[in-house]
């Protein structure tokens, strides 16, 4: 009995197959349908290689949302329709190069947009340098990507790690706070941040009393807080982000240091953690290229459109993704959607002036953003912009980038 059943199914399958083959033969004989569409009207493939799972999942989603919003707003003016190929990079550095390669060679994307994690970013940079595929970095701050490893086809719409920290050095020095302790995770972003801060702070006449470090992503701060209390510096500069930042701010307050020693950091210290830390962050000042209360028509329109489309409030990551979309659009418009004219596209992107929600943004010689850096202060659940710490900041200096013509 079971055998008969098996034969029945097999038989049915065979009959289906024969029918399908006959149908295919008829179609092929008919001819018309098998002709390929002309290449010009094929869609432009955009690869979105971002973290969609894990700790950085929210950042990946915000960036993808921002990018798509920008592209949708530009609509037909791009000259061609856009097709997305989405790939979760899981923020897993060892697989970065392989995954980027998959988008480039298998999916044949015309533009690769990504990513968040600097380790994964290094893998992508390797692949796009080899293949020459147009590439836009919407977050990762690793300085080499627009430094030693810069290339004509690599653009960034976020920041280089030292960039948000550099203005803070000047702010602290200008306030006459001379003796400063720095504290950060000892890994790429932490080290480049502290270096950026020191650069302008030492120029302003400040002195680093001690550099304190802890291994990434260790969050046992207690001993370092005790050390800071005994050093009694005029101010402390820190680099932490995400869950670690939330824990740091809570510990800082619990140790009684809040209000006694002024605390400064890059904006990442207070992004996305204000709900979690209660009043522990109140009054803390940070520097970043975006913040709450930027009262421009562009920013208002962007925030409204984003909130309407995704039922979410946009953050700095959404802005970076949105601007990646705008930069891409600037290139597309210059060649009327013909992505094969890569040289012209790159030339247009290089000189593009992006009307970003953050303000005006242009590209440096190394293809890193030149933008205003805001000074922000935590007020309630907002990172309220209180002023511009540095206008049109191009940092780090493009000296390490030997851009081939």
């Amino acid at each position, binding site marked *: 009995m079971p055998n008969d059943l098996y034969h029945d199914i097999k038989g049915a399958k065979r009959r289906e197959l024969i029918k399908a083959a006959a149908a295919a033969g008829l179609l092929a004989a008919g001819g018309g349908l098998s002709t390929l569409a002309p290449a010009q009207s094929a869609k432009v493939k955009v690869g979105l290689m971002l973290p969609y799972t894990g700790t950085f999942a929210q950042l990946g989603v915000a960036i993808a949302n921002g990018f798509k919003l920008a592209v949708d707003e530009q609509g037909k003016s791009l000259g061609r329709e856009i097709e997305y190929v989405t790939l979760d990079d899981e923020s897993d550095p060892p697989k970065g190069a392989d995954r980027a390669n998959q988008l480039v060679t298998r999916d044949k994307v015309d533009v690769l947009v990504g990513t968040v994690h600097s380790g994964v970013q290094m893998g992508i940079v390797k692949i796009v340098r080899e293949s020459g595929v147009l590439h836009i970095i919407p977050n990762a701050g690793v300085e080499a990507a627009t430094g030693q490893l810069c290339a004509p086809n690599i653009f960034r719409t976020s920041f280089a790690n030292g960039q948000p920290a550099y203005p803070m050095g000047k702010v602290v020095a200008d306030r006459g706070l001379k003796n400063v302790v720095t504290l950060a995770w000892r890994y790429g972003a932490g080290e480049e941040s502290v270096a950026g801060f020191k650069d302008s702070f030492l120029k302003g006449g400040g002195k680093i009393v001690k550099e304190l470090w802890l291994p990434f992503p260790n969050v046992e701060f207690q001993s370092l807080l005790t050390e800071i209390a005994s050093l*009694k510096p005029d101010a402390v500069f820190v680099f932490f982000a995400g869950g670690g930042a939330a824990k740091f701010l809570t510990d800082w307050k619990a140790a009684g240091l809040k209000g006694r020693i002024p605390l400064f950091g890059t904006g990442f210290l207070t992004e996305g953690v204000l709900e979690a830390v209660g009043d522990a962050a109140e009054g803390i000042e940070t520097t970043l290229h975006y913040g709450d209360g930027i009262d421009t028509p562009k920013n208002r329109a962007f925030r409204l459109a984003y909130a309407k489309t995704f039922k979410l409030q946009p953050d700095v990551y959404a802005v970076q993704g949105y601007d990646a979309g705008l930069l891409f659009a600037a290139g597309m418009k210059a060649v009327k959607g013909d992505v094969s004219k890569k040289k012209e596209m790159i030339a247009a992107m290089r000189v593009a002036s992006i009307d970003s929600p953050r303000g005006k943004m242009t590209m440096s010689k190394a293809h890193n953003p030149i933008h205003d850096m805001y000074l922000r202060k935590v007020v309630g659940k907002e990172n309220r912009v209180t002023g511009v710490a540095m206008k049109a900041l191009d940092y780090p200096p493009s000296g390490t980038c030997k851009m081939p013509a």
Partner: protein
Amino acid sequence: MDFPTSLIQLLNAVQYGLLLFLIASGLTLIFGIMGIINLAHGSFYMLGAYLAFSLTEGLGSLWLALPVGVVLSVLFGLALEWLVIKRLYARDHLYQVLLTYGLILVFEELRSILWGDEVHGVKVPEVLAASISLTENLNYPVYRLAMSAVCLVLALGLWWVIRRTRLGMIIRAGSVNRDMVQSLGIDITLVYRIVFAAGVALAAFAGMLAAPTSSVFPGMGNQVLIICFVVVVIGGIGSVQGALVGAILIGLVDTFGKVLTLEVAGFQLLPQLSGVTVYLLMAVILLWRPEGLFGSHD
């Protein structure tokens, strides 16, 4: 470093060590008694922290959240043992590592689905929200001191159960010869289930206790997992006293490694290498006593 600062650092070290002990004690119980390498132990710590977050929101206070959370995590541990872990007893360590690693991924994904990927905070209960002034500009949160006290009480309690009660005797016997205990008419399956659930509850309790000071965030369990394995290996597998001594040692080395400056021949060793001091300690102890400080010789 002046004398008062050194004393405060010592307090920091002990306090960190005691919390590590609380997490690692469950790991050493499960590892030493049941022979299970449980990589998902950090996930139970994370589960505890997220339970503390949700239950405190729902019930209004951490005091209510703690007992409810412990009961839930015991039930969770019992269910997990019955569903998954019991299939591992007769198998090789490789299967255990594979399966419990898989559990980490499952728990992380469940956490993401249930709670999302945001960072959360848990309020310190009113009574313990104060802090004691230690120096002119440094306070010590009362909550941290209370945490240490709870950890000490639990350490004593664990020692008493394992050394002084009938259940403890059966557990110890079961860890040496499972079959013999069974043939003496004792339901060893049940004993194992209890031990596993207790291990889960200890880790989850540590997570709940730490939640107000550490905030609650994705991946928080993986950070403590590795350091807890170091504690267990240093202390000797399965030894609760060993875990306590190992945890305090690590607290000391980690704390002072971050803040002391040590230069040898012009090359800065500390704090440049503070990330590896803990592992150096482990290597040295294993060279001296391969079975760990309190490990048995078999």
